[in-house]
């Protein structure tokens, strides 16, 4: 026991020095710490959770049902095209949930139709019931599309948020159809919610001038057309107008390569100017040159933003969108167009925002509670164990330093419950030392010499310490696995606290005690 090997001493010293080195930047202000030279091998400061620094947390659900529905509609189109080309007569073609049905009217050509449809799309399963054919997407294909929809959503959401200049947002997929967005510093997420609430699918359609709106309102919309609301971005400006447009898309938003808010030279109204890629520019040029004098509807998420009359061919691949916008609206619209369309609408499942002041208050309260707790526990330990209590207190300080260092190195997020975890650790961390000290007292009472009492005390207490801490660690691990956000933060600090207190009790104070024994060779242990 009095032989605390040299390499063990070296290891303990190394851990302590590394801990101090990794923890000290947290004493600096944020700006000073950020300005530390790159070559200094210190980790960044502790990563504060949104509940401490203020910010918003949004859990979004990608409505993947819409993606599947669109897939089914595309499948209907494919089936129609295939059957028409082969001149097979059919009826009742339509999508129904996650499958497409069609009834073949020429019984002799059923097999031919099945073969055609089977070859048309590799991702579908084809089943036949009498003269009716059912096409179903395979589960794998559906899962695949959902995954890519979520991946695409993450990308678009990131682009939209980046455009607004929010620093260090976190955008990560969660589960099958969810996206978690964390926005530090944004405590009022209304603008973000507005940005994320729009799918921003844009397309240019020609107006259907043959069908009067009154006809369409009465339910007589020709098969190739649709009736859409015509509005400015703002609701309630004038009465609701409607317009009939052709279903066929002239150019879709995918071909946009840029969109910028700007002002109309003549009346100084906010407008959005845009530019197409080559394919888009060609289609736009063709359509405008053939349809001078007709109206061109600009459709965003099923609503017509504006429907200007085409005055002459627009060949350069760029144009403008006017629409009675405010400056803010034109900014937002151009941002949405630049970032691209979401594959499906998003729904907000959970929203939590904390103002920066509450976060700062929480940090202060946590620090005060921590310091007061620390002082009280420290005094208590000294009163109870005298000199050994002082050693335990020093170990407790190192314990906290090591927790801070570990949090900094791991860049784990410190949350308010996390601070609670540290305060709780302060109370519980001394337990290991208490176990050892009580055991030493017992051994002394049993009449052992100082060296032997300390030796037995440590070796007997160590198994207890490990057993009791490992069971706690199990509870904490479960907390981490099943918990979310702040709770996980609590679990992390508590787990680190348990590990570091194991280290400080079994290694650090033990080393001090051994070194002290060696130097002083006491006759009586002051405990």
């Amino acid at each position, binding site marked *: 026991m009095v032989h605390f090997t040299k390499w063990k001493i070296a290891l303990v010293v190394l851990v302590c020095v590394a801990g101090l080195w990794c923890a000290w930047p947290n004493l600096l202000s944020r700006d000073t710490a950020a300005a530390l030279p790159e070559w200094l091998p210190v980790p960044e400061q502790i990563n504060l959770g949104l509940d401490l620094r203020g910010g918003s947390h949004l859990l979004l*659900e990608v409505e993947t049902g819409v993606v599947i529905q669109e897939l089914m509609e595309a499948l209907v189109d494919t089936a129609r095209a295939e059957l028409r080309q082969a001149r097979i007569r059919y009826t009742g073609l339509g999508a129904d949930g996650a499958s497409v049905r069609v009834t073949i009217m020429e019984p002799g050509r059923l097999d031919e139709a099945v073969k055609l449809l089977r070859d048309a799309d590799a991702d579908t399963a084809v089943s036949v019931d009498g003269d009716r054919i059912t096409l179903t997407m395979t589960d794998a294909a559906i899962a695949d599309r959902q995954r890519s929809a979520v991946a695409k959503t993450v990308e678009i959401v990131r682009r939209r948020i980046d455009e607004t200049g929010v620093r260090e947002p976190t955008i990560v997929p969660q589960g099958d159809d969810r996206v978690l967005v964390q926005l530090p510093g944004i405590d*009022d997420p209304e603008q973000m*919610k507005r940005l994320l609430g729009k799918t921003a699918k844009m397309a240019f359609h020609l107006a259907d001038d043959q069908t009067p709106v009154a006809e369409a309102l009465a339910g007589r919309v020709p098969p190739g057309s649709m009736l859409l609301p015509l509005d400015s971005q703002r609701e309630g400006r004038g009465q609701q107008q409607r317009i009939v447009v052709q279903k066929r898309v002239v150019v879709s938003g995918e071909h946009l390569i840029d969109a910028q808010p700007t002002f109309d030279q003549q009346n100084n109204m906010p407008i959005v100017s845009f530019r197409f890629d080559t394919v888009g520019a060609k289609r736009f040029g063709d359509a405008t040159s053939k349809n001078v004098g007709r109206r061109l509807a600009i459709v965003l998420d099923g609503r017509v933003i504006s429907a200007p009359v085409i005055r002459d061919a627009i060949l350069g691949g760029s144009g403008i969108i006017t629409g009675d916008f405010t400056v803010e609206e034109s900014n937002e619209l151009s941002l949405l167009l630049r970032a691209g369309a979401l594959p499906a609408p998003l*729904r*907000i*499942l*959970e*929203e*939590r*925002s*904390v*103002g920066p*002041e*509450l976060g700062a208050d*929480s940090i202060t*309260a946590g620090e005060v*509670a*921590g310091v*007061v*707790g*620390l002082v*009280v*526990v420290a005094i*208590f330990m000294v*009163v*109870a164990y*005298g*000199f050994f209590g002082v050693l335990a207190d020093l170990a407790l300080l190192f314990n906290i330093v090591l927790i801070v260092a570990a949090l900094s190195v791991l860049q784990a997020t410190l949350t308010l*419950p996390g*601070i*609670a975890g540290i*305060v709780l650790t*302060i*109370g*519980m961390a*001394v*337990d290991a030392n*208490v*176990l050892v000290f*009580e055991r030493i*007292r*017992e051994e002394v009472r049993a009449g052992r010499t100082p060296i032997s009492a300390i030796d037995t005390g440590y070796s007997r207490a160590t*198994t207890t310490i490990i*057993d*009791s801490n490992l*069971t*706690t660690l*199990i*509870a*904490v*691990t479960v*907390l981490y*696995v099943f*918990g*979310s956000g702040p*709770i996980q933060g*609590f*679990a992390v600090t*508590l787990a680190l606290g348990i590990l570091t207190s194991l280290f400080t009790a079994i290694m650090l104070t033990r080393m001090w005690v051994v070194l002290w024994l060696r130097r002083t060779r006491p006759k009586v242990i002051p*405990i």
Partner: protein
Amino acid sequence: MRGISFVPANTHIPFMAARRVFLAASAGLVIASLALFAVRGLNYGIDFVGGILIEVQTQGPADLPDLRTRLSGLGLGEIALQEFGEPNEILIRIQKQEGGEEAQQQAMEAVKAELGSTVEYRRTELVGPKVSKELFWSGVEAVAFALVAMLVYIWFRFEWQFGLGAVIALAHDIISTIGVFALLGLEFNLSTVAAILTIAGYSINDTVVVYDRVRENLRKYKTMPLPALFDGAINETLSRTTMTSMTTLFALLALYLLGGEVIRGFSFAMIWGIVVGTYSSICIAVPLLIYMNLRPSGGGGEAAVTAPAEKAS
């Protein structure tokens, strides 16, 4: 510099003699807790039932009646207003709205429109019906899974009797904590579950320390009657149990009194848990071992050991 023992060195408190009183009292506590839970239920926070929580700061002391009238005029169902720490800090709770996620958003917008910029928003939370249901079940899962995991660990490290005894004591702690929450109508939310799991961790930590000594003494004194042996183990570790409970309570009291309003419920749950957890380690977990076949050294031997033990108590 020598320390002071807060617990005398050689205590001989006959815990086992009073074991029937402890077990009866705890059975009563558990039954009362379950009854309270069944009758009054828990005051679930929005984490588990969905809804909206808004913490605002008003300029000057808040006019609660006025706020209440204005907000109830919005037709959003039950709205609870509560002073939160300071007279100018108000917590507004709005029940889950019928009609899915969008309805929650609209309710939040309506409230913000009504309050406008006369108040400062310190915190807003909105949990939709889908997520709240998931959070609830993952909380239940977490507690159940933690219990099983700890049972298994102790079973491996000790004997099955110890594992069972520890888990019964744990269940006692958890159920009575739920009972206290039901009795006082305290908000039961995600952080309460975290507190409960931490209580579980602490309580089992405490239990393991006493069990460790029981195991050690079982090896040392092979013929000592079990009640005397258990009393010995408890008394030998009593000083440590008291010390650790005290330091932990000090830290938690600091957190409860100074840690701010947001974690007050959390620290309250923990304080209760430390008290009940310490009690259960000594007065439930160990006495339970008497009723389990701890020295299975053949039929006769066991009878010989337990029979005098019963008389001794």
